[in-house]
């Protein structure tokens, strides 16, 4: 299954300037694509459009097409799209329904909303918790978890809805190093299992370890795109407001100091 954004231009309601201009992007089944860019570059807007929330939920004007397997999604309601493309935001606390007393119930919230039968929901929840590696949290109160654990629960909740693609808008931005490591590990597992991931992130170290391809967005436009290793070492990243991964920065520092070195991969 392929998620395609075709010549997307999007304006938020009440604004004249386009937050996305003529953006085209493709996310194949099992592919992991990173999106980087400075603040206000349009990364979050890209996520909202890719997931279908813009303009359905937040209004605004969209031109171009979002396609799933070549089929336009324009007329499809949000709950139908939700079963194909899941979206995870950066604030772990707002990802939770707030009405579930256990993590198991929290993860079941989405599948139950899809109208699935109880037995199927239990199967999916069990599988999702296992896939993310948080089965042991099943009976815990989701409101009493750490930020990293909450974010994992949110991802498991999306996964249980059975989407082939997940859109993650800075999923580790509000997490401590331990939380970041937990989420990064879970995303690696998902990628290995074949879920397509579109990840916007300032943390290029996370992307370097996950993505096969990286897209750079600047002022609402895709300005560069290519294999992750090449893009994350691109000298223009600084100009686009993106900090390269630590490995690249170290290599540059060594080169500037006249030290010839080849860091291990």
């Amino acid at each position: 299954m392929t998620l395609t954004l075709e010549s997307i231009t999007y304006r938020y309601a009440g604004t004249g300037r386009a937050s996305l201009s003529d953006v085209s992007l493709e996310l194949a089944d099992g592919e992991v694509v990173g999106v980087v860019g400075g603040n206000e570059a349009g990364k979050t807007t890209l996520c909202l459009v890719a997931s279908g929330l813009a303009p359905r939920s937040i209004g605004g004007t969209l031109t171009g097409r979002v396609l799933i397997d070549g089929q336009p999604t324009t007329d499809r309601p949000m709950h139908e799209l939700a079963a194909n493309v899941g979206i995870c935001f950066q604030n772990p606390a707002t990802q939770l329904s707030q009405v579930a007393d256990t993590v198991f119930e929290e993860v079941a919230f989405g599948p139950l909303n899809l109208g699935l039968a109880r037995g199927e929901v239990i199967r999916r929840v069990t599988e999702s918790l296992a896939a993310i590696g948080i089965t042991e949290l099943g009976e815990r109160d989701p409101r009493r978890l750490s930020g990293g654990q909450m974010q994992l629960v949110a991802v498991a909740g999306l996964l249980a809805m059975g989407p082939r693609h997940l859109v993650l808008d800075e999923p580790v931005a509000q997490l401590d190093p331990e939380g970041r490591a937990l989420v990064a590990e879970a995303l690696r597992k998902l990628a290995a299992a074949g879920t397509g991931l579109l990840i916007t992130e300032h943390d290029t170290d996370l992307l370097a370890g996950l993505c096969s391809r990286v897209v750079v967005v600047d002022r609402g436009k895709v300005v560069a795109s290519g294999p992750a290793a090449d893009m994350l070492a691109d000298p223009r990243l600084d100009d686009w407001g993106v900090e390269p991964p630590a490995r690249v920065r170290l290599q540059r520092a060594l080169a500037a100091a006249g030290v010839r070195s080849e860091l291990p991969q």
Partner: protein
Amino acid sequence: MGRPGPSAYHRLNPLTKLVVALTTTAAAVILGGVFWPLMIVFVFVLVPAVAARVLAQLLRFMLIFSLPIAISALLINVFFYPGGQTVLFGLGPVTATAEGLSFAIEILCRIAAISGAVTLFYLTTKPSELVLDLERRGVPPRLAFVTNASVQTVPAMAERAQQIIAAQRARGLDTEGSAWKRVKGILPIVGPVMLGSISEVEERSMTLEARAFTRPGRRDLLWSPRDTTLERLARYLLLLGLVGVIGAKAAGLV
């Protein structure tokens, strides 16, 4: 389908506990006087509270919730009861009357019954369980969700307010001392709490949409609180009892 609870009373169906709370409250108000409300408090509040092992908490919450209204009811009735004739003592321009005191005690008994019944329900019932039970009985999922989310949001907002108070104090905001200082200290706290909550609402609503919450139609439930024939019978009997109380009161029997 049911879940283990700390006591048999906790494990009762939420609707049963709600019916107990509502009929208890209504009966105490309708019957009035001193004896009946106190009897109701004893049988339907204190005994279950002991069984549920929440008596200490119940008394503490009852006191916290009902004390302000109880004090004002006592003062107003003791000193300003319209039919007061038997003067107990004078206090400046006002006098306390025996009739006012008697009426105030009746009011206090009703307040005790109401706050006791509501507190017992609150202490022994999870909002999520009540909502699940109501949803199982046909209440629309959206209404059930909004009810539950509203209840669950209160502690979350209180927690956020505490964090903001701590943050503002760390930046030198004085929220203690004179009343004026406290009032001045409210604005820098209320603003961030409200704005933060509003900005979260948008993301929260998008999250709900992304989790197919807007899909029309009924949905299956993962579990629902257990309900037994005995409990159904008890609920009908309680409602029947309330009808009996209304009838007896109308007929002047009590």
